[in-house]
């Protein structure tokens, strides 16, 4: 659904990523690791079309990103759920409103939303925090809310950038099982993380491939973990 073909990207001088080829197909589960600053976030930005590659091609749902205009990109993003490292909420709206925002933005708000939203809040364990503002939530609650927002449009692809960055181990495992559940429903999942324990824990639940960014290139790092 999202395919990278020989993609390179550089900020000004020198390349950060080069010659990257990857295909995120339905039902796949990828981990992306690498040291800080190795380009994990940049890689994800290329996937959700915030950045356009300096060389090579990124295709989203069959279309080359370079040929897409701003509205095409907006429409494609509705099929991609993103969990950001810093969550990116609108702080003046309640958690429930933030989670439902993609529906309003996509013009998909409908009558059964209230029920669906309640079910979703329950699924991520935030049923009793629906009216709270984002700054009032703990780190783990925010991460789960971000995941709920990422999946409310029932996207085909879920991209998560360090989703367990500032939560404890119990919460990490819960987030992981939520992602595994989504993966079993056929979503393509890509999680950027440097948490090797998380990757080991995942191996028991899903058939995940582990990718590593090293020396600007993407390598398959499966078996040694």
């Amino acid at each position: 659904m999202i395919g990278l073909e020989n993609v390179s990207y550089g900020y000004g001088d020198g390349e950060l990523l080069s010659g990257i080829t990857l295909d995120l197909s339905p039902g796949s589960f990828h981990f992306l690791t690498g040291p800080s600053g190795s380009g994990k976030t940049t890689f994800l930005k290329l996937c959700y079309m915030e950045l356009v590659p300096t060389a090579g091609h990124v295709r989203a749902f069959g279309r080359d990103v370079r040929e897409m205009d701003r509205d095409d990109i907006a429409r494609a993003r509705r099929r991609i759920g993103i969990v950001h490292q810093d969550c990116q909420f609108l702080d003046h709206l309640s958690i429930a409103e933030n989670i439902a925002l993609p529906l309003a933005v996509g013009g998909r708000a409908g009558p059964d939303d209230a029920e669906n939203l309640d079910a979703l809040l329950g699924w991520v364990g935030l049923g009793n925090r629906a009216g709270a503002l984002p700054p009032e939530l703990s780190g783990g609650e925010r991460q789960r809310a971000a995941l709920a927002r990422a999946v409310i449009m029932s996207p085909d692809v879920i991209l998560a950038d360090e989703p367990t960055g500032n939560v404890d181990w119990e919460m990490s495992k819960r987030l992981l099982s939520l992602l595994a559940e989504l993966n079993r429903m056929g979503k393509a999942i890509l999680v950027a993380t440097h948490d090797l324990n998380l990757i080991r824990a995942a191996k028991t639940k899903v058939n995940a491939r582990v990718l590593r960014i090293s020396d600007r290139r993407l390598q398959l790092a499966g078996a040694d973990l």
Partner: protein
Amino acid sequence: MVPPTGFTAQLTVFSAAAMAFLAVFALALSLAAGRLADRWTSELARSATVRISAPQGQIEAQTRAALGVLQTTPGIASVRVLDKDEQQALLTPWIGQGLPLDVLPLPQLIEVVGDETGYDSEGLRQRLAAEAPGARLDDHARWREPLVRAAGRLRDLGLLSILLITLTTAAMIVLAAHAALAANAQVIRVLRLIGAQDSFIVHAFVRRFTARAVAGATLGTGLGMLAVLLLPDAPETAGGLAAGIGFRGWGWLWPLAVPLLAGFVAFWATRLAALRSLKELS
């Protein structure tokens, strides 16, 4: 969607109200000047005076001759010889009462009223000169024309003021919208990331600024109309333009267009400003 901003919102409403208030006055001035120009053009243009100054014995004969000319001139609806009392009434404001007018050698005045088509002043002048040498046609053109020009210019200035007020409102809304867009860059970024199209984001800002401009302009227009309504009444003959400022009859509907215009201007100004600055964001 966009967080509320109390202070800048109030500034936008206040500016729209102030501009609408000024626009109502510019409108009242334009309409009054327009009415004045029309009146000086049409009403006064149709009336003229023929003055017959001749030695006492000849006045009557020349008056008859002049009347003969006037009555056979096409485009003249009515001709009337003013009697002594009427002439005295005309002079009283200038020289006071109680003057023995009988002893003064007053010229005879004839009031001429043209019909819709009007008459040829120059031709009439020549024929009068031939038939009654003491007769002079005064069609008020000499003092009327500069007045009509002045009133017309005043009306144009009023309309220009409305145009400037409109443009200033647009500029102000663009500045306010730019400030709001810059202050909400993070909100816009989040909305973009979850799949908002530009039109959705633009709509959120446009709705807000149009509502503020219309609310402010409605308030300003209301106050402006009230202020015009409460202008002290002065008789129009004495006050001229100053007394004429205001709205007459259906003219009161004109200022109601001010909030609509403000809304229209705000809608387009915000839309264009937002679309342009969104292009600069990723």
